């Protein structure tokens, strides 16, 4: 199954939850927000959200701003 995380294609052997996909992706950041197909997902829902083929995950992190 293929999904994309920040436009990077990630191959998953089987359907999995968000937390597992992030581990495979190797996310280093501790503070971030995540959306799947444009819908923001709360951190508390990562373990219960099962990914589907072609899901697009968007991960945003803090940056300097005015």
């Amino acid at each position, binding site marked *: 199954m293929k999904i994309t995380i920040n436009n990077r294609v990630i191959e998953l052997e089987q359907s999995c939850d968000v937390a597992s996909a992030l581990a495979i992706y190797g996310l280093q950041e501790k503070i*971030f927000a995540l959306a799947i197909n444009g819908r923001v997902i709360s951190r508390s829902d990562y373990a219960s959200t099962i990914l589907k083929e072609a899901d697009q995950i968007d*991960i*945003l992190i803090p*940056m300097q701003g005015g």
Partner: protein
Amino acid sequence: MWELGGKSCQSRLLIGTAGYPSLEILHQAVVASKAEIVTVSLKREDPTNRCGQRFWDIINSLSSLVLPNTAGCRQAKEAIYIAEMAREIFSTHWIKLEISGDDMLLQPDPFELLKAARTLIEMGFEVFPFCTEDYIVCQKLYDLGCHILMPWGAPIGSGKGLLNPFGLKLLRTRLPDATLIVDAGIGSPMHAMQALMLGYDAVLVNSAIAQALDPVAMASAFSLAVESGYVAHQAGIMPETDFAHASTPLEQTYFGAR
């Protein structure tokens, strides 16, 4: 003390965190500014660059209140998305709503701003719209529930100061109950002082501090200027006149009585 979005603050200076020579200087500048509120933004995570975490560690060490912005958005739907992501990251319902309608001036788009503000307020956000000094737009934003407005002094990063003091003063007069913060265009402490002297509640400064030769010293200068402007406004500034009025009573001077 004054209140902003339900929080008590001492300083009337808000500080942006972009464009400093280093994160260490950013940290020192925020401390020197005595600002209690810092603005931050969001970007897409890049696994090869962990600067997001380093930046966040610096912000965390300051114990500042965080005001996330929606910089870079051109449409209401983009800004709403960023606001939702910001709420998730920073655990705050504050959002500085920026929607640009023009790439050269980065002028706020009033139509998209109103559209986004309406939705975000319904979603429970405290919306700080970055807008122009246009009274009608500001009144409509206020009526929607934006009780904190951030009109620009001049285009972002231009350092031109308050280009339309008449319009800003009019806005202050027409919206006496709004919290008004001049955001953008401030280039020197004098401009910040001027905004406070017009009766504005606060200013947000970024480039003028970050791009100074010595950002830490400049942050301190802004802190003093904002304090001075506020005290001057409270003290009551004398009215201007077109002709001279002798401060020394002339009839009592040796050559004065004619």
